[in-house]
């Protein structure tokens, strides 16, 4: 029998239907692989009993011919998603011992479609980070290493555990979330596919909030087809999230393989940033050539406010985070550190519970929202956000999709970037998409000189996910897939 963990979702789905193996055998293969890969620290909690129980239920449904779209497919869940009765802490100490009494809408959708939960995945604390170094549960190790080097590398962040687990084949696919690039940047660092859908496409209900006007859930998967299958199940219209948009969820998988002849692909000149490594620039040109060779039309465009997206983001996101994280006060859930009085108890609990990066962002957010500064910072940033969105609205007159690099570099080493602003620059190509609420997909497109995966990003019109899958599949067809050599 072939190694079951090497199968994509679409291949496993076919194998299960043809009864070549059972859902329980598939789940057991993953549980064994997870045990061997513990050095990666991708899972902060494995749930083998729950996984086997769900797999057995899937086998019963498969036998009865009532299978869902993800029947028997083993998945990893980012620790940001509330899972009923199961550890959910956003990888923070402040949520110590928290076990939700409810299930997030996105994960509930996956279980409705027959998926199996393998465990909870590591991430940057409260999704604040670009390297998975801010997790209370320690760093995640990227399955990829530089050629002829044994040095550990970061998997990117904040969905570092999700990306590493997908790349290491210790889940078939994973849930992730993206506030400024947290799906696309780790996907690019690990040779996986990650899509952040349009704001409002997936329900945010039951996802621990970071910056509510930017947060959006999406999948990380091994290939474009698997990402399409995952998003179809994750997306829904949810009465529990008033920002979820009343639009039917299309069959994204059907978009894969559609010819891209005549597709207008925009190349924004402002993304050619100072100091961009030559290999990133070359990869970007190659991506455009691949699309052109398949019949797409390449159009130079301008998105003039691009450089202001990141500074505006570092007002909006911390401001919203400081409000959202006010709820962690040691009263209703999580860590409580006693104090002289109730305020002292709040201050002690929050100081002990939040890590350095989270505290930094709470302070920035509190500062920019404080009396006298609100107009100068928050309102100005929201105006810049309007300008960023206007840039894209104008571009959509000329193009159907925008092509950019996904990240300014390949994966780096833990501890290599210590300056917060340097770390924030990792999101330079991804953050505009969140600011404008647009969908964006990262797709592997090549390897760096050091043998590390590099990704390209495609940005779409609002609810243009089908076009993204169509164009990403065209890049994938030209670039091929990339699998990390197993060393663990």
């Amino acid at each position: 029998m072939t190694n079951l963990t090497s199968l994509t979702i679409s291949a496993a789905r076919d194998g299960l239907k043809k009864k070549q193996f059972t859902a329980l055998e598939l789940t057991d293969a993953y549980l064994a692989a997870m045990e061997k890969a513990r050095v990666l620290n991708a899972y902060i909690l494995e749930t083998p009993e729950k996984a086997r129980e769900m797999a057995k239920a899937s086998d019963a449904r498969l036998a009865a011919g009532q299978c869902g779209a993800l029947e028997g497919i083993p998945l990893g869940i980012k620790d940001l998603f509330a899972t009923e009765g199961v550890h959910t802490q956003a990888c923070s100490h402040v949520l110590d011992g928290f076990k939700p009494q409810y299930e997030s809408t996105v994960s509930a959708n996956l279980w409705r479609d027959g998926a199996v939960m393998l465990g909870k995945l590591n991430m940057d604390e409260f999704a604040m980070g670009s390297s998975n170094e801010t997790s209370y549960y320690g760093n995640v190790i990227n399955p990829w290493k530089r050629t002829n080097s044994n040095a550990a590398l970061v998997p990117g962040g904040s969905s570092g555990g999700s990306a590493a687990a997908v790349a290491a084949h210790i889940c078939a696919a994973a849930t992730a979330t993206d506030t400024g690039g947290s799906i696309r940047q780790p996907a690019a660092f690990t040779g996986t596919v990650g899509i952040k859908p349009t704001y409002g496409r997936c329900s945010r209900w039951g996802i621990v909030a970071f910056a509510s006007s930017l947060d959006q859930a999406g999948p990380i998967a091994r290939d474009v087809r698997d990402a399409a299958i995952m998003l179809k199940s994750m997306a829904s219209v949810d009465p529990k999230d008033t920002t979820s948009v009343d639009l039917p969820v299309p069959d994204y998988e059907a978009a894969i393989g559609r010819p891209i002849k005549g597709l207008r692909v925009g190349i924004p000149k402002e993304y050619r940033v100072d100091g961009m490594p030559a290999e990133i620039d070359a990869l970007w040109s190659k991506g455009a050539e691949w699309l052109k060779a398949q019949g797409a039309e390449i159009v130079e465009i301008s998105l003039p406010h691009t450089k202001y997206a990141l500074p505006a983001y570092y007002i909006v996101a911390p401001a919203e985070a400081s409000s959202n994280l006010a709820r962690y006060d040691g009263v209703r859930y999580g860590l409580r550190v006693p104090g002289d009085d109730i305020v002292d108890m709040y201050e002690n609990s929050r100081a002990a519970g939040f890590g350095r990066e989270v505290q930094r962002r709470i302070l920035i957010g509190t500062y920019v929202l404080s009396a006298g500064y609100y107009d100068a910072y928050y309102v100005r940033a929201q105006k810049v956000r309007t300008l960023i969105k206007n840039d894209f609205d104008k571009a959509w007159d000329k193009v159907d999709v925008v092509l950019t690099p996904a990240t300014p570099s390949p994966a780096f080493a833990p501890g290599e970037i210590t300056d917060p602003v340097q770390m924030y620059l990792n999101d330079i190509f991804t953050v505009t998409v969140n600011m404008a609420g647009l969908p964006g997909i990262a797709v592997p497109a090549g390897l760096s000189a050091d043998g590390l995966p590099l990704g390209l990003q495609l940005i779409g019109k609002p609810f243009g996910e089908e076009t993204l899958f169509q164009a990403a599949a065209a890049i994938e067809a030209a670039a091929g897939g990339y699998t990390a050599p197993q060393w663990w």
Partner: protein
Amino acid sequence: MSVDQKTVKRVARLARLKVKDEDVPRLAGELSAILGFIEQLNEVDVANVEPMTSVVTMKMKMRNDVVTDGHYPQKIVANAPAQDDDFFMVPRVIE
């Protein structure tokens, strides 16, 4: 924009974060660097630009003002560090 140590302490108090005295200079430096990075927004002409309130053009959904959920206080307090008789327990706030 440079943040002084007094401001760090004031903002930390507003955010209900206890900051150790020895960490204040480091935080002042880090916050100044981040705010310095943000300063470049001042180059942008935002006159007559509406601040964004929603990234997706949609009408706010309305719902009937009725109770649709609830009646499970035990579930609500289940994760509390201290609870008694379906109430959250906190240190005494009124003498």
